[in-house]
């Protein structure tokens, strides 16, 4: 491949990478009937972390009963179809999200602490300091084989400067992923840019027939202008010729690319159209981000990702489920039943979107033909228990996915109250093969995750 610019190199290698992955065939549409050649390949393990802000109405979250005999309460009801792939974990805590003498700012601390287990430094300036997050530790092991070591997505505006909570930098409420104590990884919140990050800036069309037609058309067009330029060349001065040479190089490069598309039928096309921006409803927005996330796993572009369903302290309104009030003020419900009910509605809504994620993973075939969900380890939760009290104990936490046979679902596991959340992370990292001895404030491993 004639590589002309650095930019080009990126994209070329990107497409090549994607193409190679697809040779395995990873996309349903590309799998020839009866293909089994790749089935022998063991599917890699993947991880995902999803965050919901402002805590939950904990009474509507915690199941009655424990072990495998429990009922999904109101908020978790949407998970019923995935009962055997989900465990509810009760009793975990983020001690380092507590004030510890730093005063207000529970939302910022919760956001920064959720995946790091570290007490963030109170500052609204550039001297932010938290810790490396569990997804980034995992990416060091799982991410070496994929093009993107990790993928950070979010469904709310991404601000990284200024004061967002009682003297805490917006970086803390904004980013749950931290590459180092001083390097937050702000989530990509624009689906269009997320798409481009995964698949490049190529203009795809979902319909192969349209693509073929367009390729043919472009070839004819390029033939005409190519000939015209050759004609021109004779009559031009040296500098003008140089410009026409550049032009012709461009023409040939595009022609070559079209040829490649035509000759290589397995070449990659993302099965969704490039998004134009942030969709008008939250449901569409989150589902689009989830689609992109699943696609990234499926095409093996990344094996670790995080999804922020709402930044900590979010004031999003949920008109589409009949809650027009901003989330954060509502979460200070002062135990007023109507307000708590509205919070439960939002919590349930979030969980239903998480169920969409699980559903997508369940119904997407991995390289070995089994559901993608079997090869996932997913954590869903918040670092605030209840928005009214800002408590960081007894956090709402779900674990899902088969973890390549290392995780079992279908249980409500109750740990001793105050058990570090980071013990869960350490246990998952063990399964991912990351050889670390602690994460944040972890004190050990969690039992009972595998049956």
């Amino acid at each position, binding site marked *: 491949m004639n590589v002309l610019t650095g*930019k080009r190199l990126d994209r070329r290698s990107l497409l090549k990478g994607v193409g190679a992955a697809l040779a395995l065939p990873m996309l349903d549409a590309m799998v020839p009937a009866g293909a089994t050649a790749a089935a022998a390949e063991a599917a890699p393990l993947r991880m995902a972390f999803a965050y919901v802000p402002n805590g939950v109405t904990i009474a509507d979250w915690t199941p009655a009963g424990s072990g495998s005999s429990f009922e999904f309460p109101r908020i978790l009801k949407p998970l019923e179809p995935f009962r055997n792939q989900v465990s509810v974990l009760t009793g975990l805590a983020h001690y380092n999200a507590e004030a510890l003498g730093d005063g207000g700012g529970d939302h910022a601390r919760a956001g920064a602490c959720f995946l790091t287990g570290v007490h963030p430094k109170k500052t609204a300036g550039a001297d932010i300091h938290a810790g490396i997050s569990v997804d980034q530790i995992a990416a060091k092991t799982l991410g070496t084989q994929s093009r993107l070591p990790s993928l950070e997505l979010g469904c709310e505006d991404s601000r990284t*400067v200024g004061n967002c909570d009682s003297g805490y930098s917006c970086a803390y409420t904004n980013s749950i992923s931290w590459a180092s104590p001083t390097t937050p990884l702000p989530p990509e919140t624009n689906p269009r840019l997320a798409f481009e990050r995964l698949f490049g800036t190529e203009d795809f069309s979902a319909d192969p027939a349209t693509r073929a037609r367009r390729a043919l058309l472009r070839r004819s067009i390029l033939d005409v202008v190519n000939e*015209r330029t050759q004609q021109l060349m*004779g009559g031009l001065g040296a500098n003008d010729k140089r410009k026409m040479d550049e032009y012709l190089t461009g023409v040939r490069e595009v022609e070559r690319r079209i040829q490649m598309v035509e000759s290589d039928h397995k070449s990659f096309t993302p099965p969704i159209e490039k998004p134009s921006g*942030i969709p008008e409803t939250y449901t569409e927005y989150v589902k689009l981000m989830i689609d992109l996330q699943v696609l990234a796993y499926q095409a093996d572009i990344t094996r670790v990702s995080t999804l922020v369903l709402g930044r900590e302290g979010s004031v999003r309104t949920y008109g589409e489920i009949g809650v027009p009030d901003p989330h954060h003020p509502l979460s200070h419900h002062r135990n007023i039943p109507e307000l708590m009910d509205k919070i439960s509605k939002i919590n349930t809504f979030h969980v239903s979107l998480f169920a969409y994620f699980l559903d997508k993973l369940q119904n997407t075939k991995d390289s070995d033909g089994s559901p993608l969900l079997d090869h996932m380890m997913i954590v869903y939760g918040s670092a605030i228990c209840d928005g009214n009290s800002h408590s960081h104990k007894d956090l709402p936490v779900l674990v899902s996915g088969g973890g390549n046979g290392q995780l079992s679902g279908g249980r409500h596991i109750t740990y001793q109250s105050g058990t570090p959340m980071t013990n869960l992370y350490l246990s998952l990292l063990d399964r991912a093969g990351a050889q670390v001895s602690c994460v944040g404030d972890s004190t050990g491993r969690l039992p009972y995750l595998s049956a």
Partner: protein
Amino acid sequence: MHLGRHPQSTEIRRRGFLLIAFLLLAVTPVMAAPAGANSERFAQSVQPFLQKNCVMCHNAKLKTAEIDFSQFKTDSDAEQGTETWEKAVEKLRTNAMPPAGLPRPPQADMDVVLKWMDTAIARADERAKSEPGRVTAHRLNRAEYNNTVRDLVGVDIRPADEFPQDDSGYGFDNIGDVLSISPVLMERYLTAADKVVHASLYGPEKLKPVVVRHQPPSPKFPLVDKPLMNYDLTGLNLPNALHTTHWFSVEGDYTFRIALEGRRPNGSEPVQIGLWLDGKLVRTLDIDAPSDGHSIDLFGMQREVKLHVTQGDHWIAASILRLYEGLPPSYGGPNPSKRLEPPPPDPKKLAKIPANATPEQTATAIAAAQEKIKKSFVPANRVYVHFVEVIGPYNEKLGPSAESRKLIFICGHQEKHDADCPRVILTHFARRAFRRPVTAPEVKPYVELYAQARQQGSTFDDAIGMALQAILVSPDFLFRLETQEPTLKARSNGLHNVSYAGTDSGIQPISEYALASRLSYFLWSTMPDAELMHCAERHVLRKPGVLEAQVERMLKDPRSKALADNFAGQWLELRKLEYDRPDHDKFPQFDEYLRMSMRQETELFFEDIVHNNRSILDFLNSKQTFLNQKLAEFYGIPGVEGTEFRPVSLNGTNRSGVLTQASVLTVSSYATRTSPVLRGKWVLENMLNSLIPPPPPNVPRLDEETVGLGASIRTQMEEHRKNPMCASCHQKMDPIGFAFENYNAIGQWREKDGKWPVDASGKLPDGRTFVGALQLEQIYAGAPTQFAECVTVKLLTYALGRGLERYDRPAVKAIAQQIAADKYRFDDLVLAIVNSLPFEMRNGANVAQGVNHTT
């Protein structure tokens, strides 16, 4: 020590230095010496002088500043050194060399050497033939592409916004040599052609509604306990408002969601939000929230409204209307709330004093409760607009415009087309797209493309569309390929006969079509309109009076706004303002509205000079500008109310001309502080065309942490200049920068730099002194030749789309001289450029056969 980031230009400066000394020469008339008179003196006086004073640094080994005087041994060596002498003359004349700290040569020796060098340069200039040069095939840049497509098919969809950034050279992004085509760009051209043709034949693509949030950093402003009685009732000019610009790609309905941040005291009436489009109040919305016990928490409270908006850029503002009204009566503000005000909290009740408390315990508890009440007091202005979201489009205007289809289907688009219709349509379109007549053989491939598509089953429109796409990616459209007149036609009027007679026969007038394109891309950044094309067609564009009339018409046309966007935007570096992020802590008053207002002031100022044919010296010292309330308040000029910009007299103020406009003062500053160096460099490069070379390597930088701590920036700079290595350039830049020290890094007047009183006095290297910017401007305006030549160089560079060369000097000089006759009027400058040799002609040498449309 060195002062921060060194002002290094990112542009190509390949030949830029050629012009440095040239302009100095322009103010220093040189007596042409008879040939040969110099020959003895080099060996006798000049060489020994160089040996004694210069060669210790500027030798073959050290080559300080890339200069080696030791290479000049004989007279014929010396003849080759014109560029070196130009640099040397400048340094010697401004006392920049020998550097401070080294002994100064006697003035008599200096005079002899300077005279020799002046003569050597003048002779070199005489040897240099005046010639028009040749502009390299010029690819349309992003602005030109967008505008051209808009005028070609009548749809304004800005496809080039998706193209990679254009490279710039010589200060502008329309330089033929620099503009390149990458494969990525080629691909974008194909996509853009597809979009453009689709939009013009079938209307814009149906878009899915999307959400775009505009949320600036939280404003910082002083909180007040007591409401103000006299303040901006619209709220637009208060920091509580939010301003932004949004590009609406299509006309349609859009939802505007406005959210608040902050609190109001219990018992306040709802907050009234004003939603403004392009400075007009379009909707008023109430936002309320229940009390959370302590106060009314408005954080995240929001309202939506749907509005119909036309396509284009629109200025959106959301403000708090009558900010200090509707507060509880106890606040004592205007129009207090009619809601029930909760009784003031009783410290005794709040303190919950146990029955058996001692008097001391009671007092302590009450004091604590009072403290708590005080802390929970809600200031009168603690609410602001948090974000505005624009969601849409809905019910957007779809379908093609009749205008677009009329521009394309010129043979009357009925049910049936006759067999010749495609050829007629495509010939007409190609002629407009290529900006010149086209021949039948040229159009043939496009007609064949149409036929091919038809054969494959495409509809008539689709097949035409395919051919149109090909035209839009052909080099004839994407490049301005200039044709020349078949024969040399000497013209005797105006400037364009500047000594080209008798020069190389390769020099030819460009064709009238090429001239029409040069005019339209120069003044409008777009293709020539029908009238220009008609002039070229009838071969009258060069007829006396016609060109002048056309230029005048074009300057009056709204499309000449492109000059403000693209010429002024780059000459005055206004485009930088979009990306400047003045430190939010140090300059909290720098908000989006101020940024927009700053840019608009300078653009309107520039357009006023263009439209009203004012003198270009007004850039230096006009006592009139254009202000809205926001900027007038920022400048401390009373009596300007509302969002509309209007002419405002600057008499009696500390501002005049463009140099004291906030836009220019901001782009020539760092984010946290002023920089006399940057400002000095800005003035030298943009007003005097004197380029400052990059600093020598290994110059220590100024430790930013210490700036302003131990001394004023001026004192620190003066320390800096004690280093002779630095002094030669900094003594040119810094004093100019000092003149502007009364304006802070966002252009606001100040008397002090931190703790230190500002000293805005300075002395130019030639000895002229001044106090403050206004006096400096008078110095420049008083001897305007250098400034006039600078503006000429900038505008000519932009007009031609190429960097200027030695052979352009006579033209530049002549233009500047010519416009001096009538007060340096802008029209005269444009006309003189349009009539100049480089604009009218080109060197056709090395050209076997032009892109001759007669073949």
